[in-house]
């Protein structure tokens, strides 16, 4: 668990917030005569907050919308609805100078180290680009900053700055990408599968680097991953997405030890157990992930849910707090319409019983 957890709680300052965020894509019909009747609800109404200094992990299967959330937060796509608040100011449709500020403060590291760096630019220039765009430092200062930040990720300016990306290994390229993101001294770093494309042996190195950098520069991370162990290692809180919706949001240890939402439970159970002797009780969900074009009614998860209730197909469960700091969107829980008898959820910190699963 991230030892910064305690730090966050003493300074609950919201750096980034998504409010009612939606992104719908319309799929055009044949030959461009867009009948547009088909809409992909990639992100279907999401609210969450990111606290200063923490790492918020976002997990879910492919197609759940987590990458779209990242793209929205990075202003690479315009939301269909909703707000994105940075330090309280909405950046959606904001003025040029607001956006410029935002871009200074929020940077990203993407999954593929091979296509994250412009192949025909020298590494030094790649890293310098954000600073140059911001335009506040002189050439000499830029060079100094680049050299500094390269050192911080474990690279050497003199040896490396004049080389091209293809002359580096995958792990090194990811470091370059991180250096570039850090060059403007951002406050928030959005990491989309930062180590998934790296060799397993390198992953730990880069994860540790990220960890160190967060501590040193008081960074806030938003980390998207399908690698649960990585998420567990680095995150303070975790949010789980399914088909464009948030189903659970809580502190890391709460999510991993006592998942409240049936989907979270299934997701976690599919991960290999830490020791071969521990029996894996994998919950196999029936059916496949439905397409985001025609999601099931009510609770999106209801067709596959082992605990499904009749009302699940009609009502869309809202994200409500089960207890402070732990939110769930599921009708099984009190305040959602269900009674605690429907599902035994142990608040005492032991793993949930899986009664009722046939």
């Amino acid at each position, binding site marked *: 668990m991230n030892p910064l957890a305690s730090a966050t709680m003493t300074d609950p300052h919201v750096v980034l917030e998504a409010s009612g965020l939606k992104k719908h894509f319309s799929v055009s019909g044949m030959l461009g005569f867009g009948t547009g009747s088909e809409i992909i609800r990639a992100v279907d109404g999401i609210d969450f907050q990111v606290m200063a200094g923490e790492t918020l992990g976002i997990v879910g299967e492919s197609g759940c919308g987590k990458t779209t959330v990242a*793209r929205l937060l*990075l*202003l*690479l796509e315009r939301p269909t609805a909703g707000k994105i608040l940075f330090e309280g100011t909405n950046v959606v449709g904001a003025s040029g100078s607001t956006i*410029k500020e935002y*871009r*200074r403060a*929020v*940077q*990203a590291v*993407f*999954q*593929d180290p091979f*296509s*994250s*760096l*412009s*192949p*025909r*630019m020298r590494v030094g220039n790649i890293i310098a*680009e*954000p600073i140059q*765009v*911001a335009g506040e430092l002189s050439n000499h200062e830029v060079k100094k900053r680049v050299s500094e930040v390269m050192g911080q990720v474990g690279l050497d300016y003199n040896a490396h700055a004049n080389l091209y990306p293809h002359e580096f290994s995958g792990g090194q390229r990811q470091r370059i*990408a991180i250096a*570039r993101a850090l060059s*403007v001294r951002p406050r928030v770093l959005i990491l989309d599968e930062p180590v998934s494309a790296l060799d397993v042996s390198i992953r730990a190195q880069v994860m540790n680097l990220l960890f160190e950098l967060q501590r040193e520069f008081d960074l806030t991370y938003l980390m998207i991953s399908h690698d649960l162990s990585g998420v567990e290692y680095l995150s303070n809180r975790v949010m789980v997405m399914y088909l464009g919706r948030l189903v659970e949001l809580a502190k890391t240890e709460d999510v991993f030890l006592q998942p409240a939402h049936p989907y979270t439970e299934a997701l976690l159970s599919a991960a290999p157990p830490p020791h071969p002797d521990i029996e894996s009780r994998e919950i196999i969900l029936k059916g496949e992930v439905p397409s985001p074009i025609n999601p099931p009614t009510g609770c999106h998860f209801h067709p596959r849910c082992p605990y499904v209730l009749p009302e699940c197909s009609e009502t869309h469960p809202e994200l409500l707090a089960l207890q402070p700091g732990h939110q769930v969107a599921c009708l099984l829980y009190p305040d959602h319409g269900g009674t605690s008898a429907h599902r035994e959820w142990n608040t005492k910190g032991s793993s949930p019983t899986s009664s009722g699963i046939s």
Partner: protein
Amino acid sequence: MTDAQTLEATASRAARLGRTRVPWFSLAFLVIVVVSAIFAPWIAPDDPELGRLRDRLIPPFWQEGGSMDHIFGTDLLGRDVFSRVVFGARISLAVGFLSVAIAGTVGSIIGMIAGYYKGWVDALLMRLTDMTLALPLILMAIVLVAILGSPSFSKVVLTIVILRWAFYARQVRGETLAVMEQPYIDLARISGASTRRILFRHVLPNVMPSLLVLATLNVALIILVEASLSFLGAGIPPPTPAWGLMVAEGRDLIKTSWWVSIIPGVAIFLTVLAVNLAGDWLRDRVDPRLRQI
């Protein structure tokens, strides 16, 4: 031979073909042509446009009646064929490079804009491109010449530019689209890079190599087109010694004074061939995927 051995043999042979097949003769020949074009006034023994009627139709030096005064003989007006060929190199190369340079620049800009903005801008520009590309070159060149009035050097260049920009636009657009898909473009945006910056710092450098190769291959085609136009009388006007024009002028003399037509014709052939070979080699070195063009 076992499969493994065959595979290895093929691979090494391919490697050898790819690497050592530098077209020395083509490149050497091109150097000669370029040098002739640049230093024409010093290389050519006579004025290409002035002829002495009493010296007309002298055969080349290796034939009976020829002399070393006029290596390639003289034409109907007594002009020295060799001098004309040397000066003609200027025209062909100038038209070739100038048209390609201008069309390439214009086409690239349009292609980049189409690929960058996508949507209706792209659709519109691509329609325009397709239409322009569908037009048969020589045909349209003639028509354009008709419209623009009596032919001249600049009009030939203009015609070619109007007809060819689309070729580059399409290629550049495709490459731009591919580049735009890449995460590093997103990352540039995230850093706040402006459209201009993205286009010139990221898209252009990645598009350049194949563009250059394409341009080189095109020069050959353009030289042929210019020659054909001049031959038809719709290109460079006389008395300028354009190669195509020279072939046309000597056409009726083909039976007896064959050198008036054939020698400039051969000049065209060799130059175009050299450019083609050099261009092919360049293309193979830069990006073999362009092979289908």
